[in-house]
């Protein structure tokens, strides 16, 4: 009676597999998780992610073998509600939030999640970045309204953490198809320069250096400085910058950079950080598209889960993560995307090659939602 399952090897793209499994209702067995590693099996942050999934679902069956190298996951139904989760500080909240963003719209009751842990670290997209880019993207698919909110209550830098994020999302029965083919021109750039447990001047120094790079392109720039103190400042010191360019059509391209965690890696001057971050933003703009590289997979997932209509989105070059995500979508939903490369025209000065992704949705509907 139960649908046939899928099998995978290795712990890479762990979140994709579990999230897609939850959405499609297909069982998944992941074998050989770091089986050749000195320290085999699932890491704490992965276990934490599984626990988070368990919290938002009902009837999920999880079996992990003794060494932690084999995981069997049989998804239940998405439940939602008010949950609180202590995210493992090995990865930032962004890691967990990316998974939640994909699931949140298909819960039984609207999700109100309080996530505690590291808000900003160099590896994962920070909460601020997701707030500026992922939330507007959700709105494109019809997930909007009062309930949609992502709030940084406390900021916690790696490695200590101590941050707190409030994420709430309304539920939808179906998503609407999108045609995001024309990104429009960038009309303004906004940003947040944050610093915790260090001099408040750091943020200002970041702002100045970042502006010096991007001021050549557009004058409408405003970078907020965010200096949190006391209880709201987490456990570790650090600073960083998130930049987002907004186009006329309401699409966001973003880049971020944050200081290395205390006691790890080389120290970086705030001026350099600002400049490098600005350059990353330029790189992102060069890649272009309607969705920035971090959220490509989110956009593609929602296109897949749309009604049985054609959706289109223009993306920059596909990131390896997205490429793997596309393969997983094919495994779980039997959806293949039509990909048309759009090389830049000769006289055009709009960055590099773009890809137009087209697909027909599976006609997904939120089966958890209650009808009365």
């Amino acid at each position, binding site marked *: 009676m139960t649908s046939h399952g899928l099998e995978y090897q290795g712990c890479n793209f762990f979140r994709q597999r579990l999230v897609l499994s939850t959405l499609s209702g297909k069982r998944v067995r992941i074998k050989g998780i770091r089986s050749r590693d000195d320290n085999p099996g699932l890491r704490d942050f992965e276990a934490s992610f599984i626990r988070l999934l368990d919290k938002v679902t009902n009837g999920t069956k999880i079996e992990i073998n003794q060494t932690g190298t084999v995981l069997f996951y049989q998804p239940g139904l998405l439940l939602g509600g008010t949950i609180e989760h202590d995210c493992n500080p090995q990865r930032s909240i962004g890691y967990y939030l990316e998974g939640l963003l994909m699931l949140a719209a298909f819960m039984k009751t609207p999700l109100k999640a309080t996530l505690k842990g590291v808000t900003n670290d160099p590896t994962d997209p920070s909460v601020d970045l997701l707030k500026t880019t992922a939330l507007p993207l959700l709105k494109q698919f019809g997930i909007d309204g009062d309930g949609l909110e992502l709030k940084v209550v406390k900021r916690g830098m790696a490695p200590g953490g101590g941050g707190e994020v409030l994420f709430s999302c309304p539920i939808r029965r179906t998503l609407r198809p999108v045609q995001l083919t024309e990104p429009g021109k960038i009309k303004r750039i906004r940003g947040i320069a944050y610093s915790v447990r260090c001099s408040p001047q750091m943020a200002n120094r970041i702002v100045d250096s970042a502006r010096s790079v991007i001021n050549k392109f557009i004058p409408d720039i405003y970078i907020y400085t965010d200096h949190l103190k006391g209880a709201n400042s987490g456990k570790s010191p650090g600073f960083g910058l998130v930049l987002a360019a907004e186009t006329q059509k309401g699409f966001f391209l973003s880049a971020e950079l944050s200081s290395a965690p205390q006691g790890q890696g080389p120290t970086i001057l705030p001026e350099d950080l600002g400049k490098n971050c600005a*350059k990353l933003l330029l*790189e992102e703009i060069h890649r272009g598209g309607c969705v920035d590289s971090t959220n490509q997979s989110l956009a593609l997932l929602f296109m897949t889960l749309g009604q049985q209509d*054609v959706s289109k989105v223009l993306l920059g070059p596909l990131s390896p993560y997205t490429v793997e995500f*596309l393969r997983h979508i094919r495994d779980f939903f039997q959806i293949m995307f039509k990909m048309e490369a759009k090389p830049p025209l000769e006289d055009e000065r709009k*960055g590099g090659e773009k890809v137009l992704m087209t697909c027909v949705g*599976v006609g997904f509907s939120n*089966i958890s939602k209650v009808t009365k």
Partner: protein
Amino acid sequence: MMDGKVKEQKEQRKHQQKSSGPKSERKKSRKLDDTAVEENENKKNPKAFAVQSAVRMAKSFHRTQDLKTKKHHIPHVDRSPLDPPPIVVVVVGPPKVGKTTLIRCLIKNFTRQKLGDIRGPVTIVSGKKRRLTFIECNNDINTMIDLAKVADLVLMLIDASFGFEMETFEFLNICQVHGFPRIMGVLTHLDSFKNNKQLRTAKKVLKHRFWTEVYQGAKLFYLSGMVYGEYQAQEVKNLGRFISVIKFRPLAWQTSHPYVFADRMEDLTDPETLRLDQKCDRTVSLYGYLRGTYLKKHTQVHIPGVGDFSVADVGFLPDPCSLPDTKRKRTLNEKERLLYAPMSGVGGVVYDKDAVYIDLPRGHVNREQEESRPTTELVRSLIDTHATLDAKMASSKVSLFRGSATITDTDVEGDEQLENSAPLSPDPTSNRERRKMIFTGEVEANEDGDDSEDGDDSEDGEDGDDSEDGDDSEDGEDEEGGDDGDNGENGEGNDDMDEAESDEELDTNEGNNVSMFLKQVRASTEQPGKLTEPQRVQTGKRLKMSVDEGEPKVSETLAFADSEDDLELSKEDLSEGESAAEESDEEDSESEQIETRAAGSAFCSDEEWTDDEPDVESTVKSEGMEIPPPKTTEKDLKKAKALEIKGSDQAYETDGALRWKDDLQQKASEVFLKHQQAAPNLRKLVYGTVSSQGAGQGEEAELGGLFRVSRPEKSKTNLADAADYSRFHPDSLHNWDLEEMMHSIADCFVTGKWEEWQDAATLLKQDENLYGDFEDLETGEVHNGDDKDQETQPEVGGEEEADDDAKEDIKVDDETQKKNKRLEKKRRLKERFDAEYDDGDATYFDDLKEEMQIQAELNRTEFESMDDATRVQYEGFRPGMYVRLEIAALPCEFVTNFDPHYPVILGGLGSSEGNVGYLQLRVKKHRWYNRILKNRDPLIVSLGWRRFQAMPLYHIEDHNGRHRMLKYTPQHMHCGASIWGPITPQGTGFLAVQSVSETKANFRIAATGVVLELDKSVTLVKKLKLIGYPYKIYKNTSFIKGMFNTVLEVAKFEGASVRTVSGVRGQIKKALSTPAGAYRATFEDRLLMSDIVFLRTWYPVAVPQLYNPVTSLLLPVGQKENWSGMRTVGQLKHDLGLHYKPKPDSVYKPVVRAPRHFNRLNIPKKLQKALPFKSKPKQDQGKGKTPRDLIRPTVVREPRERKVAALLDALSTVHSYQRKKARGAQRLKHKGFLQQREKQEGEKVKRQKEAKKKLYRMMGQQENKSQRSSLKGASQDG
């Protein structure tokens, strides 16, 4: 003469209009007034048009708006395919109502062909754009449920002579639950009405009842009578016209799920495994048009009546019953009126991977069946040794006269049935009886080994009394056909047959199921050693039966006539096949034609089709493109193997294998172009090569293999365990300090250069162009630019054109250009105007509709240009395609007990619809079902595609959201139900029946409802009352025992409220150490020792996890409607003869009441004193003895005194009598006096009146006199 007179009469004098006089003036004035009034009616009567009441105005406005909005439906994206699948027309009705006859008539009407025995769906081309699939729904609730789910149009046959029957209403209710398809009613048996008025009233009554069930004004057809066993041609034609123009509204379930209504089934199981284990799971391929929505590969399907299966392989085949390609014609060509009914044994020639399907020429079917009947009967009966004697007896026929109709057992039975049912019919209550009767009759018929259709037909024959002969002969055909079909299905003794027999077999079987042919072929392949030459010739012959000139689309090329070269190529592998083919060639030269399908895809699944061929081509053309070949070689090998195994199929196979040579160049160029494009490269990067793509679950398991495609192999393990992050860190950042680099993204900003059509400057210019003076356009640069365009255009058009012509052309072009420009300008102005003035009218609804339309357009055009094979990968299989689904591991009963009369539906399941969980439903017992439903009694639920047995728990939601369990469903109210079952999207309707096997007289649909919620757990509670007894009572505190057993249990209920029977409320305070489970509780009043303390709590109930699919299709033929699952407790008790033993406590006993004795009320003396007098107890004791002085002595009379007293007594009696008498007389006298006095009084009054009158008259006269005299006097004075 007469004409002249008429003319004279016609030429009458004209009416002379008055041009003067009052009448003409009046008319003129009225005319003038009229125009004036029309203009300013408002002015003339302003009150009538003034706003009287703002409220009323608002109300009327609201009302009009409401009415307007009510007409709106939620707009949906129109996802209907461009070439839609055939419309499923389900013919429904109780037995003996004329379903088969109607289908036959309709088929004859559309295709001019006569089908003998109709088994399974029949697809026909009914018009330029429409195809129909007819299916008859037999009288089985399983079939009714299944067909209601796939029906587009329902023809509901009603026996007018009888009225509505339960089946009709049951089917209507099934339809209501599963989305309402179009329903057309058809009244039959109208010729049984002798009286015209009776007929009319019957029609009217039935029509109105039908309308209330379906909708007001639903179409009801009248088939007035039979002519030679068929309905009247004109009526059938009209019905056909209605069918071919009817429009449909998409149904929610159907449009969101792909489904295939299988019209063909082949068993592909390896014969060797079959030999080893007869009951092994079968691999079966099912064919049919895909409907609903896109079907993806590897989806799960549910086959109602069998179960859930995952599709092993899907492929699309060329359409066997395609629409005519040119749509310019008005009517269909005779050749385009196709008919496709594999299960009935008719259709085009179809080749595919592993089966061959052969069609017979038009008209061949009937002729053969009719002509060869008597002879084959004998032969067949001789051959048929695998049927038992009983069965043979049952199916044996007697012919009374040569050439006349045969009479069978069932015919006789049918007559009896009719006789039985006929007298019942007028009785209004006999509706139920009738159903029962018919069913039992059918069961018998089934037991005899005939199908129910035969019974129908025989009845039809009876109906048309005057055309009995024709009908009966048809019956004969039917039965024969049916028997043949059975033969074909069983057909194992075929290989024993000698050639002549098989030859004749073939003749008789031509209109028959393919599977028989297939099996013959397979049987012969199993023993290649036995295969004799003549037999092989026979196979060749069989091939040639496939003549159908009328299907240019279906059969494209002639395969064998000129394929010798091709054959040589494959000689190494196929020596045997070659010989067979050659023989076929020889035979070909005789006279007959062979036509085969040119479908290459029929041999291989679509991926092979797409991948293999390019591969071959690339090797041929040596383009040097990278295409991984290993897959194909494997497949080729497989193919070769298959060829070797299949002896007689070889001829076809060779043909298919060599088909790739056809238009090689064109394909190669196509492939080259395809590979030139960038997209496939990107696709290859992401999805790997396409060949590995479609390879199924096994390959997907080793998904790591995909990494190999794009990355070096050694990195695979590393990657598999690499860090998991979504950031895209570029390998090398561009150097953003360089001016060049910064320049490259300059246009991404608003500060950069804008596109031509967006640039502010150009936009301004455009506006100028548009609104500036037209003459300005013709002068200056603009004009030159146009000229340039004009000059280039003809150059592109053709270089060979003469130069002098060119000038003229330019002129002409110039004019047209101008014209175009003008038109363009006009259009844009109009657009602008519309935008300015019409936009106010555009409502949200209009916007939404437009949006949907745009989306629909996009959906249609996005993949239009692609070839089907590629398109299928992106979209999945489109509805309207003819697909072949291969399903592995079907239960063997599906194949062995296959009966084409029962529909095989493959319903695609959504992404998580294959899982099970708890479903919360809203249920209402059907108001026509005469019992309420008991909690936990198994019910058969039809939900989504499925029919399954489940044990529902009924519940109702309390005001605080608690789900309280109910023991029975409420009578006339909705309630909740929870079942363990397949996850089905919320909002899906369902219906429940108690059993699918029994045919009761009563309405069978027990409940209907809708899915509300899905979950993996349920919170259902039932009431639990815990009872305790006080054992120690202080003032308001009591110690209670007997409610719990341990301290822990009490601890859990601390603070809970309790109450006594008499209603004294209290609270649990704390557990006591001894006795265990006792506790202290406080109450609002002091308890008595006799009180009982209750604690009301709720106990969670578990929903029984029973999910038992109804596997009715797996049952043996003839018993398919007898599926029975879990029995209810009541049924079990009934079947086992058990009786309920009530608990002694629950038994009613006579109430014995002891007389109650109340003590006296004792009021203390002190209190008595304080009471007011009113309330004081009164001293109402006896008066005591009367004192002596008050006691009067009794008088005793002397005898004399007694006498005196007696005399006095008598005297006084006499006196009193006399007085009474005297008074009576006196009263009479007085009465007389009163009358007299009244009379006198009256006279007196009269007299007085008279006198008064006299007096007044005199007085009046006197007065007059005096007045007159005074007047006179005055006049004299004057």
